[in-house]
């Protein structure tokens, strides 16, 4: 058991951290660098610094292809879907984890089954349902679908975390005259924050990046999401990587904001609720 006692000393730890930082940051640096280059330059000199810092790729992405609007669309869709997942998910978790319903476990299991359904297998039935209500080109269509698909995982995360919170808390709160709504809103919701933040980020990331649902249900250019807009740079015989990299750089910004806002809670949230004490 000597190995266990081995500790990384200062310089070695720093060296490894620096290496790790390089590995993680490199794709980002490469993206930013490439966003200034022409497609030909990306291919002929991928690792060199750009020969000319031109913002033409950015201009093309933001104004010609409408990336600005797309970022707004993606952000809006993601935020609304994520918030509804969180709202519904936490309420459902509260009922399932805290109220001790007779069939609570069965219903929870039923929700969890949803995690196992791959989204691609549902495309055809979804398409049928959406066209029967003329739901193409509606933000609401996307939001409902995303919400439905991410609810199970959010319930899984949040309810398992809620179970970990001591039941006596509920009892003492109730003794002090706290009703169920207040119990949820002022006591359990804040206590479950790590799990909620995790669910928030995971859902947000997924919705923000999703292509397939948007491709199938959106055809109106003014409603294009970020991945859809990027597709306009992919022509059959030619892919314009310059504007794509520029789009990526611009579209990362909202994600960075969301991540920074929730980051601290996510890291603890991922492990929290995994083990029952």
């Amino acid at each position: 058991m000597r190995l266990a006692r081995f500790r990384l000393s200062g310089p070695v730890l720093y060296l490894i951290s620096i290496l790790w930082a390089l590995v993680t940051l490199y794709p980002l640096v490469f993206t930013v660098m490439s966003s200034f280059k022409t497609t030909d330059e990306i291919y002929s000199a991928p690792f060199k610094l750009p020969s000319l810092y031109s913002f033409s790729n950015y201009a093309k992405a933001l104004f010609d292809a409408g990336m600005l609007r797309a970022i707004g669309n993606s952000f809006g869709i993601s935020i609304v879907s994520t918030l509804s997942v969180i709202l519904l998910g936490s309420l459902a978790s509260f009922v399932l984890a805290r109220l001790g319903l007779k069939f609570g476990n069965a219903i929870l299991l039923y929700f969890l089954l949803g995690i196992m359904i791959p989204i691609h297998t549902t495309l055809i039935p979804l398409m049928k349902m959406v066209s029967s209500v003329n739901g193409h080109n509606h933000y609401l269509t996307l939001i409902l679908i995303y919400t439905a698909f991410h609810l199970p995982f959010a319930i899984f995360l949040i309810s398992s975390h809620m179970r970990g919170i001591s039941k006596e808390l509920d009892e003492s709160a109730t003794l002090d005259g706290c009703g169920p709504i207040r119990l949820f809103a002022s006591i359990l919701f804040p206590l479950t924050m790590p799990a909620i933040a995790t669910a928030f980020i995971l859902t947000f990331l997924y919705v923000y990046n999703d292509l397939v649902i948007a491709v199938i249900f959106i055809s109106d250019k003014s409603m294009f999401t970020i991945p859809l807009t990027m597709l306009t740079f992919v022509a059959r015989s030619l892919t314009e990587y310059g504007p794509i990299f520029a789009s990526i750089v611009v579209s990362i910004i909202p994600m960075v904001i969301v991540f920074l806002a929730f980051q601290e809670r996510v890291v603890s949230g991922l492990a929290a609720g995994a083990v029952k004490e």
Partner: protein
Amino acid sequence: MFKKIAVSSLSVAMLAGVLAGCGGSGEGKENSSSGTSGSNEGKVKIRILTRLASEQPNAVAFQDKVKEFQELNPNIVIEDLSVEDGDTFNTKFKTSVASGNLPEIFANYGGAAFAEYAKSGVAMDLTEVLEGDKQWSEPFLDVFDNWRFQDVPGTYAVPYEFFAIGVFYNKDLFSQANIQVPTTIGEFEEAMQKLKDAGIVPMALGEKDSWRGGHLYSVLANKLMGDQVADDILNRKIKYDDQRFIDVLELMKSWQKKGFFGDNIVSLDTTAEKNMFHTEKTAMHMDGSWYIGEAIKSPIGDKIGFFPFPYSEDKPEYKDVWMGGAGMAFSISGTLEGEKKEAAIKFLKFVTSEDAFKYYQEVQQGGVFPVKMEVDPTKVDPLSVSYSEAIKNATFRSELYAYDPLPQMFDTVRNNIQGMFAGMAPDKAAKSMQDQVDKLLK
């Protein structure tokens, strides 16, 4: 223990219930939806699914025409579902077909893979439409092969694009290596050797994209075996491990061994290949006529020339057999009736009229199209002019294995060619193609 079993069986039952409900309601509504969605306040809605959605000139020109049609026909609403990326297009197309919600007009590439759609009525037979309007259908070149099938009568699409595969070359590098434009395969090999000796990659091939090798294979087979070979594949009169096919593969392999295609070709993709051409690292680039626009806009635009793929000295009779034909074509959904059908036909005629093609050529400053039309050398770039000149007497055959009644062979042949370039022996690759046929026919 008992509780657990009870719970899980309960949830299985619930899941089954939901799935059954889903399937049932979908089937029932399918018919009603296609009937009602058409009447949008007295307007007819036509949805189009093409692969013209980028910012490239060809897509922009098409979008212009769509807008023009929209202005001329305020009663028809055009909803454009187009997406250019291949995989995404396929997802969209297949989902629409499977859910019975196919756009009124959709793009496709025909061939054996499309026969099923013709048979099952997904696509409409356009014979009457073509016959009924000679003024519109007359100028089309005879490139409808891909949409005519043996076991179903009719023509199922109208070509929108036309392509022919030839060789683009860098005039500067050619004069630097002191070579003339080759006309026969023998001269072609000599030229490649000279370029190689001059330290230039003769003709880079981005075989990471397996269609590059597939096209070369088809072109060579046309020049060495003639136009008959496509029919032979269609009727299974020839096997993929026929000695003549092996010869074609061996020729390709020998060029690779001599370094004519450059190094590590299996890890080079098409964009990288074109980049080598644009940065003058390779002297030739085999490609279709769709490349003309990009060639002109490239940094070496004024240095690029074009010549037809060289023919075999032993088989001069196959000199004019080209790999080419219609590229993308438009079909009309087979389920349309009444005013919707009329509107779709009207739109189809509008975007594939001779005037429309002239407009596309103008916007793209060149390009070749599936119609006979006068090319004005003052308006059109020299590459398009020499293209139009070269193909005057040509017979066109599409990618050979697209004629195979087994759609799977399309990928099989391409993948085996890629395998050959990665190290497999030519006769092994040929045998592996034929094995797949035998396996599928069993």
